[in-house]
């Protein structure tokens, strides 16, 4: 049939691409997770040892849940902060919409690493924040506040994800028919009620996408915790990195990554209890 031929043509190329550069490597990772020994790809025997080690390792699991919790919080806060931005852009910015959007995106073009270094300038003990507070007499000595802590990791990541979360929310808000809001007003809704009953539910797909844009990268994050997290900021991504790069235990690293994957999939599954993924994402 004509329709299915078009569908296959459209979906074929991206599918082949995804298969070759994504499914295959992930499959390799799964194979890896069953390999023996701590180093390399050379071992060909099959073992469940790494899974057993993982299940028995309290620190791994504790940190996995902790990181999931942090990621959840970061994603929720980043989205709550991004929502008003997207709302303003979609409904109030008028002709300045595109300019403002560019303005919000451009900072992300500066290296993430450098921006985090800059955050240390702000949050460090002789940093901007402390200097201002000292000047105002709020604090008396210069000591690091907010930096080298889990809170610093969260603040930095929220800062990083705001523009990313804003984009999908903006595009789902843009899609809302303005007449719906007039209709709501006509039916006696106050502006707040109209927002809560019409705008917010209709923009939910964007919020879901924005949530994942922030949640998932945070879960795998290891650079930010290293730079601003200090002694208590380590996240699960750091442990994975350690297994790959320090212990040279690729199978164990694979097991840990797969377990993280599982968490995300469980999360997605829970979300799909609310409706199919495509509906949630507004497709």
């Amino acid at each position, binding site marked *: 049939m004509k329709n299915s031929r078009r569908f296959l043509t459209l979906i074929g190329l991206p599918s082949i691409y995804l298969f070759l550069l994504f499914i295959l490597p992930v499959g390799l990772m799964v194979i890896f997770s069953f390999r023996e020994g*701590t*180093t390399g790809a050379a071992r060909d025997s099959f073992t469940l040892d790494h899974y057993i080690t993982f299940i028995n390792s309290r620190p791994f699991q504790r940190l996995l849940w902790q990181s999931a919790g942090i990621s959840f919080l970061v994603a929720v806060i980043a989205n709550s902060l991004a929502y008003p931005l997207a709302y303003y852009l979609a409904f109030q910015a008028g002709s300045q919409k595109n300019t403002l959007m560019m303005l919000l995106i451009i900072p992300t073009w500066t290296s993430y690493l450098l921006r985090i270094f800059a955050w240390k300038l702000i949050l460090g003990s002789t940093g901007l924040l402390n200097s201002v507070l000292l000047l105002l007499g709020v604090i008396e000595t210069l000591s690091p506040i907010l930096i*080298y802590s889990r809170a610093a990791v969260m603040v930095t990541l929220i800062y990083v994800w705001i523009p990313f979360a804003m984009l999908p929310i903006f595009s789902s808000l843009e899609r809302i028919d303005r007449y719906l809001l007039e209709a709501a007003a006509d039916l006696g809704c106050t502006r707040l009620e109209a927002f809560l009953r019409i705008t917010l539910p209709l923009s939910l797909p964007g919020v879901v996408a924005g949530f994942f844009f922030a949640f998932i990268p945070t879960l795998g994050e290891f650079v930010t915790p290293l730079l601003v997290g200090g002694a208590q900021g380590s996240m699960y991504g750091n442990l994975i990195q350690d297994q790959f790069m320090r212990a*040279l235990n690729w199978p164990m690293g694979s097991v840990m990554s797969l377990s993280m994957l599982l968490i995300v999939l469980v999360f997605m599954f829970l979300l799909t209890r609310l409706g199919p993924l495509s509906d949630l994402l507004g497709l």
Partner: protein
Amino acid sequence: MKTRKLWMSICSLLVLASMFLAACAPVATPTTAPAAPTEAPAAAAPTTAPAVSGSTQTGELVLLDWSGYELPEFWKQFATQYPNVKVNYSFLSESAEVYAKLQSGVNADLVHPCSNYWKIMVDEGLVQPIDPAMLSHWKDINPALAKQGEFNGKQYWIPWEWGFESILVRSDLIKTVPTSWNDLWNPEYKGHIALYDSGESGHVIAALALGLDPWATTPAQDEQIKQKLLELMPNVLTIWSSQTDLDQQLASGDVWVAANAWNASYIKLLGDGAKVEYIDPKEGRAGYLCGFAVPTKSKNYELAVAMIDAYLAPDAQAYLANEYGYGIVNNAASALVKPETMKLLALDDQNIISRTIFYKFISAAQRQAWTDVWSEVKTSK
């Protein structure tokens, strides 16, 4: 339409960016253009200069190296010897990357692992023995260091640079200056210590503080070390992974005591005018040692060895010490190193090499165990 304007802005942006690039880097192809030697190599070098006559050999030499060592100053000799060979660098940011890349079959002719990583590559057949007779500078290499690259009577690895890992303090911020590794546990430093993000380093510090041989610990001692590290955590403010990061933390005053800083940090901070002191603990300083190895798969063995020889040349070694503040292996280069650098690195001390506790290669089991301890320690707070 608005979108069209936006597209226009993107295009103009890219055009501007490329214009900027074009203006700044008319020949931004440094990897393909070997620097022409403008001066005779190492006229003052006490050793015999290698054959200066340019070979007509062509080809490509791929180095898997740390950035910073690609500067032409480090391989003048090679550039003179093989003017037609293309030298390409692939940069590392982790020691393990060398292993990871070789393991997955990456083609490289020369790699630059450190003392704790080269042995595993020998075990897995990833690197081949090197014939020291082909190195014109071999006779000047510190024998104690050279020996570290030997395995089963063959030289697999040629050490090239080393440095200390020791306690670096902001002397203006602390009252008591530490004299032993054990002093890191002093409550005075609570919340102001920086540790290097490495299970090995952590293990070594704790072992030295406990008076143990770090490379021959029993499981019971490993447990002791873990407890010791857990006790250290209240003092620890942060865990660093790059020298830039640590230098910032020290310079800003967030960190008072860096438990295992490199001497490069010391020199850099001194240069910035910071009040810092580099401690020589009574148990001795830890030290890292890095060098070159030739992958088994390399088809350019001779070129690779010639490149190692170039890196070992006295002028290259002196440049390494003078510019980066790293320890060197070629005794013949000492004359070219600035006296103040000699002093700072304690190179004038004849016993320095024997007194430094260099990292040794470790077994896979040790590596795994230490990393696991480190994971637990890191996440204990």
